């Protein structure tokens, strides 16, 4: 039993109004309009940012263009300095390998005993530089090693071995720029030459010279 059987309602559902103060009929268009306005404002903000960004970029470009000449000069100088520094470094490699042996050679004459006659004093040639090792397609710009070692060869005649020993002993001190302690007696034998009725002895001594190091 209910009253709905007696509810003859002439009002249609579509005609019913809402008592809620929030009406979709109002809120939706308002929302759509506000959305449009919001989007327009957002667009305005973006446009403003775009204009400001472009203006900033233009300002920086102008500044860079004004400074470009000066900047190029600084870059050129910096590149040149870099180049010169490297050149100087290589030249200092050279300076490090400069050999100064004139003074020890001068003193050598003083320490040669009377009974020793030097026939020959020479440096062996420096080792060959191989700038294109096998398997390489192009030559290297520089050597793979920065150390060169040569030998000092002394050859001469003497009456007996003692003067040669004395000579070698003399060379053990004060001649570091000329020879190292590494030496080898290549030969020591009787020669055909004679002096004072005696057969002379010929000798050849080889000293390892101090290495030339082309490095800082």
């Amino acid at each position, binding site marked *: *039993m*209910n*009253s*709905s*059987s*007696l*509810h*003859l*309602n*002439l*009002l*249609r*559902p*579509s*005609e*019913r*109004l*809402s*008592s*809620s*103060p929030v*009406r*979709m*009929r109002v809120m*939706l268009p308002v929302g759509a309009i506000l959305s449009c306005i919001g989007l327009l404002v957002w667009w305005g903000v973006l446009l403003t940012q775009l204009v400001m960004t472009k203006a900033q970029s233009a300002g920086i470009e102008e500044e860079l263009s004004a400074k470009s000449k000066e900047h190029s000069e600084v870059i050129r100088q910096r590149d040149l300095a870099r180049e010169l520094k490297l050149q100087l470094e290589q030249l200092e490699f050279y300076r490090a390998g400069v050999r100064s042996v004139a003074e020890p050679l001068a003193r050598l004459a003083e320490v040669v005993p009377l009974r020793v006659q030097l026939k020959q004093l020479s440096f062996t040639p420096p080792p060959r530089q191989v700038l294109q090792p096998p398997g390489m397609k192009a030559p290297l710009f520089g050597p793979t090693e920065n150390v060169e070692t040569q030998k000092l060869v002394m050859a001469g005649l003497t009456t007996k071995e003692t003067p040669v020993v004395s000579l070698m002993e003399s060379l053990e001190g004060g001649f570091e720029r000329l020879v190292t302690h590494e030496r080898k007696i290549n030969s020591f034998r009787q020669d055909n030459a004679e002096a004072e009725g005696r057969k002379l002895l010929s000798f050849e001594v080889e000293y390892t010279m101090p290495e030339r190091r082309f490095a800082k």
Partner: protein
Amino acid sequence: MWLNFAKPASADILCLLSFVLGTNCATQFQVKLQLTSSKSIDIKFPCGGGRKSAADITGIEMFAPDCEGCRAVRIVNKKKAWHLVAADVVKDPDGELPARWEDTPRQPSWELPRPFQAPHAALAVNSPFGTFSQSTADAILQDMSAGLDFASASASPKSDSGGKRFGVRKAQASPPGAPKHAAKPDAPARRPSLPAGGESVSENGRRFVSRPMPEPGFHLYASLPEFQTLWVSRLLPEGRRPTASSIQVAESALMASVFLQPEFRSADGDALAIFVRRDAVFFAGYRKGEPVLWLRCPSSGGSAAMKSAIVKTLGVGSDLVDSVLNESLIDPRPALEPFVRPILAQLELSLAYLASKHSLKFDHALLMGLDAGAAHWSTYAEEALRLRLVAPDPFGGLVVGKGVESDRASEYLVALGAAIAGAEASQ
């Protein structure tokens, strides 16, 4: 609201938008999906779930001829009981119920006093062009067709002497009572169809709603002019409480006013009621709560005629009529009996009808709407028909709130009935 997958999605989107924008927030929660031509499913949205009963509703009787203002009641369902929280006469809306299409341009906005600001309002309209009747289907269709010829003979829909109001063109509004012109030979005669139970249809400028009665072939139907319905529907503005959830014809509301009566409920919905209005007397019969009879008593006036007869016959002042009827110092029978006799005669016929057609036998009937004289009526009915007339408290079955005056409760029957019907308790 209907969605059809066979139609383009744009139509569905339109439906959805119109649903959202729709003016109805309380009832549009059901969607029927037409899957195939023969298969469909109903989907109820979780926040809705179909028609909900209104637990707080204001019932208003509008444009009663005997009242300066509109009688209004507010009932609230609390703890499974209906409470009457307010009953009073509220100020009329600023305007009268329009009698012609041309009167509708001015649409007033009506604000009810705070005690009556329920979420929903059921409006019962007293309109001279309103109809509430028990009829056969053919009679109803004939009534719906009334004025059809006039409408087709009148100005074409495109002529706009009055423009469009409420979305309705003037051509659709045919004033009732207009002469029926013969149909033009070339005008197609569209035959209206009976509306489905509970749904309103508009035909020829009038809006109809009907529902079948238990007796086959009979329907209970109500109608109002379309422009009046639309005008009333917009009186209570959107966004404020209350808004109209129901528009009824006053007699329709009256018929529902007994539903909360303890006597009605104790009889399990079997009842015979006599409604005495100002200008007429109505008989209403119910079986298991369903209406089985609604009859306006012919050749009889209402309470106004009764009081006039007493004044004229007994020579008392009109302000003393109630005293005469309620007290035993003066016997009102000479004035009252001639008035009541034809009513009782018709009542006898109605009793016979109810007994024969619906197997309803009554030893008493509810007498509603009489402020005074109910005891005399009962005496006469017992003498003539062995029928006891019981005049219950019109607010019977309600928990009357403090401050609600109930001395003239009979005058609020229509408003109360509108609220009860509009509350539409769920099945």
